[in-house]
């Protein structure tokens, strides 16, 4: 019985990551330089925060079309609520008579985010770095690209997720958040409002995915639709690289995690993660007893188990420590390596 082999985490020994300035900048590196995640590639100057004020906002003491404010000084009022400047910046009146408050331009350092070698520099805008990574596949993802620091929640309960977003992590703006085994619409909406760069999760319902897709939000699902746990190996690996700068590549259905070259070798021995470039992996194998499989059949959808025996059109699988076997029909399972 020929069955495809799914490999959730793959070593990618040669890949290219593009790092881009928000506005034109100045390079601190040259082609051929070796860089590490916190190496500065270059810098540029731009306003990094902007606050659009509501239409009923009444500014305090502004005569022209713009005025400078120091942090924590009073900008104006929205009805009876006082609005204070969150940072040093300029209040600007727009043509439609609405107001925006822009932070003063500050120096922004573009960090490498990866261990690798600068391969090319494109004008004053972007750099291409040759590196190595571990690529984790999403079963489903929106086709957007984003990057940011990875924050891993410890699979909290539904009640805690929103509270984690708002209080536990200090500022989720620009971060890629692994939110748990399952996520609901309300939590994803909140993450989007708070400016998260991406949300990754074990499973969700279709309304959550549709929301992310319609709003251009990077969103990835590891297991599928419904209420399905994240594969243990993925959760463990994400936890081990928490706070690393990672890349969400939705068009390729992968989360790309940069690693040191030497880390790949060590992990290969320990975790038996298949290397995409060293061996030519078999994409299909004959299923045999003892192999690890993922069931795609209710009520075991998404579960991992071990093949006990193989019949003509089905296999019998043991899940966890349960001694009983469950029949899973072909093609409702995949071999997992």
């Amino acid at each position, binding site marked *: 019985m020929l069955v495809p082999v799914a490999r959730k985490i793959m070593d990618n020994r040669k890949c290219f990551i593009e790092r881009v300035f928000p506005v034109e900048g100045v390079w601190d590196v040259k082609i051929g330089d070796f860089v590490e995640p916190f190496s500065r590639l270059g810098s540029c100057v731009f306003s990094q925060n902007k606050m659009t004020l509501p239409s009923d906002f009444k500014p305090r003491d502004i005569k022209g079309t713009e005025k400078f404010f120091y942090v924590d000084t009073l900008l104006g009022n929205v009805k009876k609520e006082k609005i204070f400047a969150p940072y040093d910046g300029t209040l600007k009146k727009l043509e439609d008579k609405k107001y925006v408050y822009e932070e003063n331009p500050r120096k922004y350092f573009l960090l490498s985010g990866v261990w690798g070698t600068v391969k090319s520099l494109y004008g004053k805008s972007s750099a291409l770095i040759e590196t190595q990574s571990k690529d984790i596949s999403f079963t489903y993802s929106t086709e957007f690209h984003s990057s940011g620091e990875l924050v891993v929640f410890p699979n909290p309960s539904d009640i805690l997720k929103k509270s984690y977003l708002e209080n536990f992590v200090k500022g989720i703006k620009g971060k890629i958040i692994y939110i748990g085994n399952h996520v609901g619409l309300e939590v994803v909406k909140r993450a989007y409002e708070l400016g998260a760069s991406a949300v990754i999760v074990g499973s969700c319902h279709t309304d959550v995915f549709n929301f992310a897709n319609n709003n251009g939000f990077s969103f990835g699902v590891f297991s599928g639709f419904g209420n399905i746990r994240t594969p243990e190996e993925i959760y463990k690996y994400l936890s081990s690289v928490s706070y690393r700068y990672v890349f969400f590549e939705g068009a390729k*259905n992968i989360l790309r995690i940069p690693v040191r070259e030497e880390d790949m070798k060590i992990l290969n021995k320990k975790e038996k993660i298949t290397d995409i470039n060293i061996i030519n992996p078999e994409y299909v194998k004959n299923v045999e007893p003892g192999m690890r499989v993922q069931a795609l059949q*209710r009520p075991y959808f998404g579960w991992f188990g071990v093949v006990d025996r193989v019949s003509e059109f089905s296999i019998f699988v043991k899940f966890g420590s349960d001694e009983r076997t469950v029949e899973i029909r072909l093609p409702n399972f995949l071999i997992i390596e």
Partner: protein
Amino acid sequence: MALITAHFDVSGIDFLIKKTKKNTEFFNFPYVYTKGIFGNQCDQKQFYSNIVEKVMSDREIKNPSCDVLTCGFPDSPELNLKTKYSVKTLDLIESSEGIVPVFINNKVFLTKGMMCSYELDEDEDFLGNENDLGEFDQIANLNAYPQTTPDDLSSQVSLDSKICEKIPERFRFESGRKIVFTGGRFTQKILNPELNYILILEALRGLGVFNVYLDSSNAYSLLRTVQMYDRSLVPDIESFFDTSGFFIRTGGSCECLINNGLGDDKFIEIEDNKVFIYPFRSDTPARLSIKSRELGTIDVHTNGGSLGIVFDTRAPGDSIYDDVKLLNESVKQFENVLKDR
């Protein structure tokens, strides 16, 4: 020289392998490439090339001494192997001769002059709910894991009914034709095979009599591809299909006299909105005299088939999927016939 033909569908791949001119083997690989499962390992081209090579090596066929032909819906994918001939399923169906092919998979209903496509997640009511892996999630997972088959009868019924909803109401098959039902939907090993025949009943639009064949190995597409490449390799394709039976759609109550020439004539009277299966298979054709308000009186001959003679007295436009009682009765009947086969 060996010949391997591959048909790439939306839920699986079917192969026709001819090691010699006389030897023909059909093989089904019930999986397809999806970016979500294999995107971090390989691309579609590498994956499918690897599968074809594996099928060849398992049969000790060497690549240089084998002609590779491909067909597929919506198109046959690119391979790293040199292919001699490649064609779209749509073109195979449009160029059909004699027997009428009806190609159904989880995305499309396709027959000569008619194509209705269906996206699993296009419905407004396809939003998720809070149920743990409810029906909506299950259908959504079919997009992520297109090879999977539903786990219960109601999910399969729901999926099939969504495909049939797309067939235009005015669409009719011409009475008296031989019709073969083919495509990925019939190659999948579903939990309740009797639902294949419910789907056929629902898709068989128009009143009249039809010789129905079931193709459970995508043989139609594979053999037509070979025919288009070299007609001498497959002179007759009808012999590769299972003759399911003689389907009679009357549009209302009917009477039928079955004369099998042995002297034990049978008279059957069927009220409207019923499905009735009369098991019959014989080398000597039986003569049927059918009388109904819509069809008038017609005399036909049939050899029956693995199911027999199937009477359907539903009014045109009535869906079997909307009538739970009739659906359950019909499923039971098909189940019993298949058990006795």
